[in-house]
């Protein structure tokens, strides 16, 4: 037969294409691009901990007005939009005892001080986070050096699997462009980015503030002793002291997520 057979032509073309594409990819993967360790320099002023934790003293919260400055501090610092629909975004908010502690509640709770007490809920930065387990791209990940569960908004594909996995409802999704719900589209904190439509977000324990030696915005805005924040592995920290002296509970502990947010009852 004259010339090349069609089958052989397709085979050769396919292999050449695969080699060409594969070669290019291999070249890019091997090519230098990562920063050397020497170029990334730690900040001496940063707050460091082996395991950041938070303790919320429920005795110090009596009514909803105490909660507003705390929630506002967080949302304003992080340019969280105020969306009036059910497609809203919230990093920290207050809810009732029945909703925060769905398995500890009972009918007679309504006869106690817990009846109208505002309970602040946020991401628990679990030691064994189901959201990290399910993320298909590692866009949500746990930072091993200090236990904070963070989001990489550049990598998130918006599949929302993490939102299904979170047993606490801590995560929010940007259904639309969040800047539409910021006044005039301007960020409330120009030093911190906004997010874009199609990515999931949640409390980040103010990792960007800890990195420059500041405590989380919510803790800073809270009244004295309302919210404690510190290193759970340091027995001399204020938070460990409080957890030794007072009885504390966590949300849904039986799920094995090992939350880092404690509630002093």
């Amino acid at each position, binding site marked *: 037969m004259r010339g090349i057979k069609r089958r052989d032509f397709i085979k050769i073309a396919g292999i050449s294409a695969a080699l060409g594409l594969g070669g290019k990819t291999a070249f890019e993967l091997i090519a230098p691009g990562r920063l050397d360790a020497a170029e*990334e320099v730690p900040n001496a002023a940063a707050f460091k901990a082996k395991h950041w934790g938070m303790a919320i003293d429920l005795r110090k919260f009596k009514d909803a007005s105490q909660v507003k400055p705390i929630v506002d501090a967080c949302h304003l610092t992080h340019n969280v939009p105020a969306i009036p629909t059910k497609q809203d975004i919230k990093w920290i908010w207050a809810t009732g005892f029945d909703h925060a502690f769905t398995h500890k509640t009972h009918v007679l709770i309504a006869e106690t001080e817990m009846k109208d007490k505002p309970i602040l809920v946020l991401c628990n930065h679990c030691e064994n986070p189901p959201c990290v387990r399910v993320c298909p791209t590692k866009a949500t990940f746990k930072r091993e050096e200090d236990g904070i569960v963070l989001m990489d908004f550049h990598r998130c594909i918006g599949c929302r699997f993490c939102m299904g996995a979170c047993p606490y409802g801590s995560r929010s999704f940007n259904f639309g462009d969040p800047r539409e719900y910021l006044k005039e589209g301007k960020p409330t904190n120009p030093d911190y980015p906004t*997010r874009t439509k199609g990515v999931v977000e949640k409390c980040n324990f103010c990792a960007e503030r800890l990195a420059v030696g500041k405590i989380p915005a919510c803790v800073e805005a809270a009244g004295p002793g309302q919210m404690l924040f510190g290193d759970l592995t340091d027995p001399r920290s204020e938070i460990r002291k409080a957890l030794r002296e007072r009885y504390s509970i966590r949300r849904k502990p039986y799920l094995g997520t090992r939350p880092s947010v404690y509630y002093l009852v």
Partner: protein
Amino acid sequence: MYDKGKIILGLVIFVVIFTTPFWWNAGVAKPVPQIELPKKEKYCVDAKDYMRTSHMVLLNNWRDSVVRNGNRIYEADDGRKFNMSLTNQCLSCHDSKAKFCDRCHNYLQVAPYCWDCHVIPPEPKEK
């Protein structure tokens, strides 16, 4: 060749349509953009030629360093230290996005989506 006339006509039409961007815009090419350099600093984070070709590589490395490793300070080859932040470092010197970033980006029809999230500082007032 079967249908020789139709095929050659079709090829000619295809070539004409395919090369439209070239002959339609012949002679009306815009001049290469002139970007306004910052007055505050003479030297950028890295060499000018490297930044011109690879600023996205640098920015992606900065992204991974800040977001995934938690390190925000970059030490350049000459020992100078920078805060790895697009808005707070790069744009603190290159304070006019319109006169710097956009000039080349618009010329090349490049629309990076960084600005969907990263805040653009307000343009400096004309003096």
